[in-house]
């Protein structure tokens, strides 16, 4: 029996979750269907009107936020509902579980963005002035969103009325991500450079690191009964 590193163990948990998700496709379906439905609804209601970046950026982040809220909680809720949480508690340490699930949510969110963001830009007829900063803002913003979602998912999985609680709890904590994400996206759509978007990137990055660190410190108290 060899002692595994934290990252290696987390990777094993991630692979297990990927495998389970591949079989059930619950979270993937929830997130993608929500995103596609919202995108279609917005596109139809706008018709041929060309929206400015001040409107497009919040719309994109609203789609990303609520789509992720519809599926990212499932990573912990599934363990509790199928009574496998105790099994996992017996197998490995809380930080391994958190990192594995955080990584899974990140992968899920990035997959959503790879599909949804180009479709959104195409359907809205939007032009991104600075693609580099735009991609970096979306990437780092998702890092923060996935961190918040994973932590809140762990908390609400122990409660009843999970679905309603998730968005309600996650929204105030995600506000810094949403505000900076929207501002940075808008700036990059208007052709802003990296240096102009640096304050937003700094907020997004710092926020993600703070949430991740706090999660690793607090998760054991949430995970252990």
């Amino acid at each position: 029996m060899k002692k595994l590193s934290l990252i290696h163990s987390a990777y094993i948990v991630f692979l297990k979750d990927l495998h389970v998700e591949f079989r059930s496709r619950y979270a993937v379906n929830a997130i993608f269907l929500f995103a596609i439905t919202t995108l279609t609804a917005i596109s139809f209601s706008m018709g041929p009107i060309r929206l400015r970046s001040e409107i497009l950026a919040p719309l994109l982040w609203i789609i990303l936020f609520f789509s992720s809220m519809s599926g990212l909680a499932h990573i912990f809720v599934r363990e509790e509902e199928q009574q496998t949480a105790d099994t996992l508690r017996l197998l490995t340490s809380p930080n391994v579980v958190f990192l594995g699930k955080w990584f899974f949510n990140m992968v899920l969110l990035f997959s959503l963005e790879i599909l949804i963001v180009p479709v959104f830009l195409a359907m809205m007829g939007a032009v991104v002035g600075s693609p580099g900063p735009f991609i970096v803002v979306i990437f780092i913003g998702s890092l923060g969103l996935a961190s918040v979602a994973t932590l809140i998912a762990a908390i609400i999985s122990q409660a009843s009325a999970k679905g309603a609680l998730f968005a309600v709890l996650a929204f105030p904590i995600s506000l810094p991500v949403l505000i900076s994400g929207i501002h940075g996206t808008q700036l990059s759509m208007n052709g802003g450079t990296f240096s102009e978007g640096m304050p937003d990137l700094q907020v997004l990055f710092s926020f993600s690191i703070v949430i991740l660190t706090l999660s690793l410190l607090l998760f054991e108290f949430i995970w252990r009964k």
Partner: protein
Amino acid sequence: MWTVEATDICQRFNRRLIFEKVSFTVSSGHSLVISGPNGSGKTTLVKIICQLLRPTAGRLLIKGDDKIVTPHEIYPYLGLVGPYLQLYTSLTAFENYSFFSRIRGCTLDIPEFKSLMERWGLKNREFDEVRTFSSGMMQRLKYVMAIMHKPEILLVDEPTANLDEDGSEIVYELMESQKKDKVLILATNEPEELKFGDEKIILNS
């Protein structure tokens, strides 16, 4: 030499007292049986021993070769079978085995897996999804997962629940061999299982 040492363990759920001042010591080569009427806290005590639950008061120490084993180090040395412990039903028996062995830091030994499956009467079901298993087969598979890493401490809650006569016989053989040189803790009320305990704790409701 492994030792599980509990001192004055007390458990309350809100204001309701489940049990108090439960103390025992059990070492390798010995076994402990926990019995008592329904609702007396047998499962709660098992969960406290395997650190799934924090006791309201009291101290639980697990020592391996006279060194205290912290909750973060205990995982590879513990095996638990209980009705509340579920496997991943959307995965196959082999996928469950693969996950359990890798996360415990063991090498994936396929011949060992096949031999365990055969011993527990699950031959030819290795690549079937666990959700297609009956409750008795599921219980057998839980044993496979609990003993695959040859744990120093084996906890069994309701050892023969859902098992037929053959299954119960295999469990009895396992418990007999575990208590020879390792720690065995079982929670049961079945008269034929009480004899597996060298020491007995009777909890009162």
